[in-house]
């Protein structure tokens, strides 16, 4: 035990630093200003080089709660914020439940003072899957401080048919109340119809635009399953009564709704390849709406070269694999990704700053409008927060299109870089959910998250020196430098029980 105590205090003692660089921040930062604690620091940018870190992982020197009475470090834990102790009735840890086995589990596991509870134990924090939510939410009583990672009826935004329904309704309301111009700001989703219920208006629209390509997607499935493209009405009639489909698929089709969506035929290509964007938005409240945008994200490239000729008649009855290759949300080769910073840099190099600035403004508009469209529909609940994965497609004119929103974006990492991104993302999500009470609630930025909407647009604090800054600048930084480590250290109070260095 003595040994444990020693390592514990040693890792916290400020290391003697050389007068050049800290070696931990690969930017010119004089030593001592930003000592890296090596605690929550899983950030790649923060270690001198990957996987060569000599600091002991946190789990090893932060004793589990059940031993705390025996452990010398309990004296440190006892210095916990009084407020929190009373709120959690004397408990000095946060009990969490985690329904997923991927990056999120690592993040929760390594967070100081958080302890996992068994299957049916009481919890303060629950990262559940949507299935759990459906079965248990309505039967559970939640104390004031408890947090859970989904809203009760999140599907209003995340099911393809409901999202479109809500957006269409929102657009109508806008048109009535604010006019056509305002309503036009909602034109960021491709023309979409729910089948079979809207079959007739779909046919009308279909006939109005001969020769165009449409995409058919089952509303509740993800990852490109069941998607196919078509150009002739005959094709879907055939598909409806296609005998070649298996019985199982037929059954599914009967209960399953589909959306028919105008296919974006002129996607923006990089070196002949199509890609879509995955962007993360965190909502902590719907009334008032409070939404955060994460700086990191990625572009997923399709492995095949884009060409519309592949949707020719002979290919209409595509096999699953072939369909998925042209499907926007199919990830054929994991690792075919660019970080958002890389993409932003590329687009800036090709089109200039102003164009990229306009693009990110338009992307912000998609997030805000889509969230506003369900603001009154989603059951607001102060226990809930939700991390959405937005899929955005760019067309040749750099207009962004909303493809879909995911309530449970994949947190399984496909590579080390991907893992690091998701780890940072989830850590910052927990910072904002703030079970530890380390924030003031007035922050505009927490780590990689920038506050995008707080019952109204949020603007950056522009210094007086900035030239000609009479116009307001949105507080979002998609694809910009994510120097979160530095920002977090200035922002956050230390974890309860941890001395500030």
């Amino acid at each position: 035990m003595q040994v444990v105590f020693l390592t514990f205090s040693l890792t916290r003692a400020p290391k003697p630093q050389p007068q050049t660089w800290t070696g931990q921040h690969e930017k010119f930062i004089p030593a001592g200003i930003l000592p890296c604690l090596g605690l929550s620091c899983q950030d790649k940018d923060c270690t001198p080089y990957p996987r060569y870190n000599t600091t002991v992982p946190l789990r090893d020197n932060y004793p589990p709660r059940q031993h705390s009475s025996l452990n010398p470090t309990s004296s440190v834990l006892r210095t916990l914020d009084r407020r929190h102790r009373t709120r959690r009735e004397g408990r000095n840890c946060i009990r969490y439940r985690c329904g997923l086995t991927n990056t999120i589990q690592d993040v929760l596991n390594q967070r100081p003072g958080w302890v996992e509870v068994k299957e049916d134990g009481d919890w303060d924090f629950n990262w559940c899957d949507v299935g759990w939510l459906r079965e248990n939410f309505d039967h559970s009583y939640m104390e004031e401080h408890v947090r859970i990672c989904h809203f009760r009826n999140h599907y209003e935004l995340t099911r393809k048919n409901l999202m479109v329904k809500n957006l269409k309704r929102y657009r109508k309301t806008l048109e009535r109340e604010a006019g056509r111009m305002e309503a036009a700001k909602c034109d960021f989703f491709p023309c979409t119809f729910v089948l079979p219920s809207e079959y007739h208006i779909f046919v009308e629209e279909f006939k109005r635009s001969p020769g165009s390509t449409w995409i058919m997607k089952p509303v509740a499935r993800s990852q490109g399953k069941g998607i196919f493209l078509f150009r002739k009405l005959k094709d879907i009639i055939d598909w409806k009564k296609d005998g070649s489909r298996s019985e199982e698929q037929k059954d599914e089709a009967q209960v399953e709704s589909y959306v028919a969506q105008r296919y974006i035929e002129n996607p923006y290509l990089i070196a002949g390849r199509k890609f879509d964007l995955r962007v993360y938005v965190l909502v902590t409240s719907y009334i008032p709406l409070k939404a955060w945008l994460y700086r990191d994200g990625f572009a997923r490239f399709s492995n095949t070269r884009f060409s519309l000729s592949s949707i020719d008649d002979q290919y209409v009855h595509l096999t699953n694999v072939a369909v998925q290759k042209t499907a926007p949300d199919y990830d054929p080769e994991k690792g075919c990704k660019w970080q958002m910073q890389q993409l932003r840099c590329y687009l800036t190099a090709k089109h200039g700053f102003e164009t990229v600035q306009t693009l990110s403004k338009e992307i912000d508009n998609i997030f805000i409008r889509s969230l506003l469209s369900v603001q009154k529909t989603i059951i607001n609940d102060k226990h809930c927060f939700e991390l959405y994965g937005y899929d955005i497609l760019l067309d040749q004119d750099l207009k962004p299109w909303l493809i879909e929103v995911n309530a449970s974006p994949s947190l399984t990492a496909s590579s080390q870089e991907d893992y690091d991104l998701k780890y940072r993302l989830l850590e910052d999500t927990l910072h904002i959910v703030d079970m530890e009470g380390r924030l003031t609630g007035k922050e505009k930025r927490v780590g990689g998250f920038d506050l995008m909407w707080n019952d109204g647009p949020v603007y950056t604090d522009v210094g007086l020196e900035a030239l000609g800054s009479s116009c307001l600048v949105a507080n979002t930084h998609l694809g910009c430098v994510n120097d979160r480590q530095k920002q977090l250290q200035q922002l956050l109070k230390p974890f309860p029980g941890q001395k500030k260095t």
Partner: protein
Amino acid sequence: MLDESAELSVSITQIVQRLKGTHLHSQLEKQAKECLHKPEIKLETLKDDVRRLLKASGWERKLQNAVYRELHILPPPGHPRAPPEHTKEPLAYMCKAQVNWEKRILKSLNSMCTELGIPLARKRPVPEQKELTNKWNEMGTDEPDLSKFRPVYAPKDFLEVLVGLRNPNNERSEDLTVRSHWGLIQVSLNVRNIPQMREMYPELGLTFGQLGIDDHTHVPPDLFESEHIHIGKKVVSEQDSAAAQQYSRQGCPTGLRAQLWSLILNTTNDPEDITHYEQLKARVIHHALLVDNLIYKDVKLTASNDDYYFVFEDYLYQVLLCFSRDTSVLEHFNYNSATPPKSCIQSKSGSEQSAVVYPPNGVIPFHGFSMYVAPLCFLYNEPSKLYSVFREMYIRYFFRLHSISSLPSGIVSLCLQFERLLQSHLPQLFYHLREIGAQPLRIAFKWIVRAFSGYLSTDQLLLLWDRILGYDSLEIVAVLAAAVFAFRAENLMEVTSLASAEAVLADLSTLKVMPLLQIFLFATSV
């Protein structure tokens, strides 16, 4: 020695000679003739009037840029009676080493040729030509069996040659100082020390704003950056190569880099350039070369596996295959110490043999060659534009990274520069690494040969290449290599083997180039 004015007049004659008969020349003539019809031209002041009009219509600037470009590739003036080989490489032992190295490469290529039974070149049958034309934009989807091919050489092999270089005029047993025995490079060349570097790179000093440093500080909010962008736009609108080059020393803004670089390199992408590219493309389609397989193999081994560059696979083929057919590249052998490799072809009668340059551009690609092109894909979409920028970069800079020569920007000088900087800057580190059998150059050589392409993140790499263009020299690459060692010195002092030293330096993708360079050059006591 010639005096300065004589030197100048020699250069002028050379440049005039080279520009005569170019497309620019005929265009200037045409413009001059056309303006004769204008009413403001007076017979009395004919010469001045025409000049004024050419100036006003921007043609003078075009001529200036063309002259400026010629100055960059002009061989250093030698004695008028010195034979031309001397301007290629004045030191006999360097020449000899280069010749021997070329022989080795050619032998290796020939043996692969015989071993695999593949001809150096063959005409493609018509169906194959058609197929290639159809998939020109997606050559990367092809998965040919390349298992039998291996790169002709890798940087490691080349390093061994450089390590073996000796100056026969030096009695090696004595005479050399202790310091020169420390490193791997055993020849003495004149390289700069830090005070000389500070004079050479004043714009990297602490008092100058830098893209790559000063755009990342938030207080005051990006003041330098917006001002710098403003100037950059002005430079672009002026279309002045020299100004663009000077500007690039403090870094090019991402949004203007493509324009600035092609301005510095004077790659105009005229209709002629596009036609030239189309001709090269036709040559690729008509004939298959053995080196094509080497190019394929290299792209698959390097760029296709790269986290950033995998997207550009098709572009790389479109550039590199055309490059290998471009005989205009041969011109750079006037000032390159290397000589284009030759191969014999049998004439139809079988009686005569004639030697031709092979591959047609005289450059045999080695392992990692495609990484010279990859970062440029980030800037240019159009294959013809991408192509001309790459070709100009190659004939100005990249060829120096794999030809043995004594020139200041040549690979031998860069290696020596790197070793000297490290020795005088961090003698303890150098000694430590040497003692454990991890000679720093063994680790840094691959970075230097590729000018760091594929090792740094793209944005950082482009910031580095900004300075290569800005200072018209590759020297900065050697400085950065030394700065990287300095930056990780503390960790390197703790390692006890080459493998662990390599592990410490395996990932450079998080490095910020400009702070490293600035600190190394200006904020370290010498």
